């Protein structure tokens, strides 16, 4: 699936080859994969932890906007998910 097919109705999930977890020693979410690790910044971590295969990108955006008392995050979330799909961190259903 290409990033072109991502819409607000897509349901992203962490790809099965990766594991997302919170690392308190690094004060960050990380993506773990064979013999490697990607340390995520706050917004990347907040988006990815909501990618459970159930929530749509619209749901994720609404949840983020509520948690951080802000609006207009939709484009940013879509762009990030597209990048995450490109890197195979995330698969969209």
């Amino acid at each position, binding site marked *: 699936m290409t990033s072109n097919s991502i819409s607000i109705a897509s349901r992203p999930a962490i790809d099965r*080859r990766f*594991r997302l*977890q919170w*690392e*308190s*020693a*690094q004060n960050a979410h*990380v993506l*773990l*994969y*064979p*013999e*490697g*690790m990607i340390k995520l910044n706050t917004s990347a971590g907040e988006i990815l932890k909501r990618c459970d295969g159930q929530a749509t990108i619209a749901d994720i955006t609404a949840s983020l906007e509520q948690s951080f008392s802000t609006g207009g995050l939709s484009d940013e979330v879509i762009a990030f998910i597209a990048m995450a799909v490109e890197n195979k961190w995330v698969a969209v259903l």
Partner: protein
Amino acid sequence: MNVQAKKPGPPLWLLFELTYRCPLHCAFCYNPTNFSGIGPELDTDDWLRVLREARALGAVQLGLSGGEPLARDDLEIIVAEAHRLGFYVNLITSGVGLNETRIAALKAAGLDHIQLSFQDSSQQMNDFLSSTRTFDLKSKVAALIKKYDYPMVLNVVLHRLNIDHVAEILQMADKLDAEYVELANTQYYGWAWHNRAQLMPSRAQVERAEAVTKRFRERNGRPMRIYFVVPDYFERRPKPCMNGLGSVFLTVTPDGMALPCQAARMLPGLEFPNVRDMSMENIWFDSAAFNHYRGDDWMKEPCRSCPEKSRDFGGCRCQAYLLTGDAANADPVCDLSPHHHLVTEAVALADGPRPIESAPVVEKPLVFRSPANSVRLFS
């Protein structure tokens, strides 16, 4: 002034060398040549305690290696505890001893990843690839790895005697449905150091192997990621070994010694702490051995005033020691090192005519890693 150096981050990468026991006898092994004289292995409870202490410090990637880690019958227990603690658990194995019972138990215990290495399991180096027995074993193990839904990651150590077979190696990897293949040129520590003259490829061999790899990458077909790790003797700048000693990496040897890199146990003048005597926190933050090569106060010229020191940290301490006799020297792979000729001479020797190819009887035979040879070398 090391005490004033910035407090190091967590030991993110923890490597357990669970045992020096191994069913194979690879002449390129980096394990110490005196392994047969090294004291008893840690018991299960020691490993589990070290896991808990390291995880509390922030360790997150765990490598289980050896020797052959499957030689430990408590491997499944160690994996289960590591998984429970939140480690990402990598098994680095020859596959010898990996049957369906064990892989099912390892999967259930939470093992995340298996790296299957290829090596010569016999003393007939020329049979490296044609050995039907090896291929059958690897095929079976590869099928199990697939069946249990692990990515197929192959590691092949290259050296003078097999590097000309890179095309066949890649075809074999393709046949095994590998997703990743690491073609890792031998690094010269331990047994490989002892056998360096026999294992060092010529520059022409390295270039041919790189060209073959490039062609294979460009072929049409099933995607397979291939990493070709160039032997550092052929480079002009050193590798940023371990990202600097004591920065992210911690190895525990079978007998419990904590090391800032797998090969460091050879470094003279450092007393490496044992996990039987000291907590991981003390080892990582307070021990002299782990602090010694942090920062750059230990550096000599030309590294000390070099603008590249923050990129490569002066290269590999073990290589500096092995080649120059002083671990604080620049890694002689660097062409700014006054000892660089030691590297170019070794390569030049590899480029010249070789007794191993020109005469049936060689003066210095390849010494295979075995308990008997280990005893003999140190008797």
